[in-house]
């Protein structure tokens, strides 16, 4: 990279802008973390409702990530390795959940799950309920989180030279064996990054979940409820706990992935 001279105005502009961005992101978060007292924090995590909502948030976004890994990985591989008619179209479909307003996602899924729709009817017949259930939350979180997983893992697969797979095949490995012995170990890192991004997106979802399942309450819904019912003071400690626990989980995952790949 070319070094910018200190006398150059560009140097000061870049420094100023970078500083502004970092402060813009960090300041509200730091203020929020600073405001609740230790006592408030302790009290709120001892509240079984709060604890349960945070655990539910982690569990449901974990499930969304797991589902994304299981059905998203082969799909990402297909997109990374093949060119076919309509590929661009399919790629835009994957990006749709990123663009649609969140409440719209919730309404769309509810519309499908209602008894008036054949699918909702079928789900009802086999005993699956979407509205106001953990299943419903997982469905919504998968919907919003999976695009992130697929896009990242697809890019990861694309970065692996196809020649490595060709050589593996020529040495006698079938396409499945090649995928398991060559492609997957090399894509490991991007799969993990994709999982983290998917989880992160899922854990932060509010708008779609609140429409499909107000109860059982996930942490963002709980924070919203406390905010509207009791105000800032009661919602902040829960928010701090959600941020803290997510952060710890993601850092652990990162450390784990770092060790594994060396």
């Amino acid at each position, binding site marked *: 990279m070319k070094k910018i001279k200190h006398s150059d105005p560009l140097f000061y502009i870049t420094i100023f802008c970078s500083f502004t961005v970092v402060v813009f992101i960090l300041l509200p978060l730091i203020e929020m973390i600073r405001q609740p007292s230790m006592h408030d924090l302790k009290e709120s995590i001892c509240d079984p409702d709060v604890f349960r909502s945070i655990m539910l948030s982690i569990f449901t976004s974990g499930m969304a990530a797991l589902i994304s890994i299981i059905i998203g990985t082969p799909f990402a591989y297909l997109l990374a390795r093949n060119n076919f008619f309509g590929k661009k179209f399919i790629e835009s479909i994957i990006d749709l959940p990123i663009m649609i307003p969140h409440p719209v996602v919730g309404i769309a899924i509810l519309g499908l799950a209602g008894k008036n729709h054949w699918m909702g009817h079928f789900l009802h017949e086999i005993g699956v309920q979407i509205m106001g259930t953990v299943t419903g939350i997982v469905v919504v979180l998968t919907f919003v989180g999976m695009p992130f997983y697929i896009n990242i893992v697809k890019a990861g697969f694309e970065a692996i030279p196809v020649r490595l797979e060709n050589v593996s095949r020529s*040495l006698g490995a079938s396409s499945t064996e090649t995928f398991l012995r060559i492609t997957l170990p090399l894509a490991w890192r991007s799969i993990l990054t994709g999982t983290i991004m998917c989880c992160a997106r899922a854990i932060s979802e509010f708008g779609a979940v609140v429409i499909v399942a107000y109860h059982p309450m996930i942490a963002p819904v709980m924070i919203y409820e406390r905010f509207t019912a009791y105000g800032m003071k009661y919602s902040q400690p829960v928010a701090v706990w959600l941020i803290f626990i997510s952060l710890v989980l993601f850092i652990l995952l990162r450390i784990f992935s770092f060790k594994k790949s060396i």
Partner: protein
Amino acid sequence: MIKIENLCIKLPGFTIDNINLSIKDGEFFIFLGPTGSGKTLILEAIAGIRQITGGSIKVKGKDITKLAPEQRGIGIMYQDYSLFPHLSVMDNITFGLRYHKSKSNNSMKWVESLMGLLGLEHLATRMITNLSGGEKQRIALARALAVKPSLLLLDEPLSALDPNFREDIRNILKKLHEKSEITFLMVTHDFTEAAYLGQRAAVIKNGKIEQTGTVAEIFKQPATMFVAKFVGMKNIFPATFNNGKAILDGLDLNLNASCNKDKKFIAIRPEDIMIMKEKISENGLNVFQGKITAITDKGPFCEISAKAGGLIFKTLLTKSALFKMDINETKNIYLALMPSDIHPI
């Protein structure tokens, strides 16, 4: 015997057209051609990696056209080595062994002897990153040969290497080919490599075979203008042919044999033209006067351009020969060449 019949590959903007070839068992066969001529595509088609639109490929009488790459027993080695970066040297080399169980009694012995031959024993536990290009190339070779393929495809194995390593690997390739019973099919755009390693070769241009034959044949008797230029025939002149003579612009040259009327050019290798200060007796040679127009430094050689009739002939001299002859630009000299070195095309 590997028999390729009417092989066609159609891609957007590029076509491999009607490739017909037969390669003998144990042969070292060369695909020659400039970059972008489709050599790698043909290799990948033979390996089963690239889908073909027509034709058939037979190995030892068995049609393998529809087999998956892993069922063909054909190894492929790419220019960039394509080693598995997450595996150690040993794991790379033995990657394919588990799929070739029937030979497993001897396979570890064979791998050990390969590693010895390639000087890889001390690297066995190393990871792939941080190895030199030459080392990576030898590992890739060992990996491909470990499973004893019936045919090994080599895609420009030498072009990514430093000149020092290149000679090393070239010698190793020759040795390995002599030691194993494996048929080698190598792609290159370097004629020196082809001449050193190859027994027979095919010259490919824009997805079509221009000429097939022994390397010496292609070198000496190019069938087309393209091949003539590709193998370094610097002297290509339009000619008409009459009574065993080639009639050029202001010059008649004796040929070895009378020649087809459909030929339109003659081609002469620069090193086949002798250059002299005094006229010598013809004695079956073509001897004619010329005037030096340019002397160009080409490293170990000098290229002498001499005008004779309306044509500029190019010939080579070593620097010491040039010094001894004491010739320079604008001097008159004599050029001599044997009728057998004139190739009508």
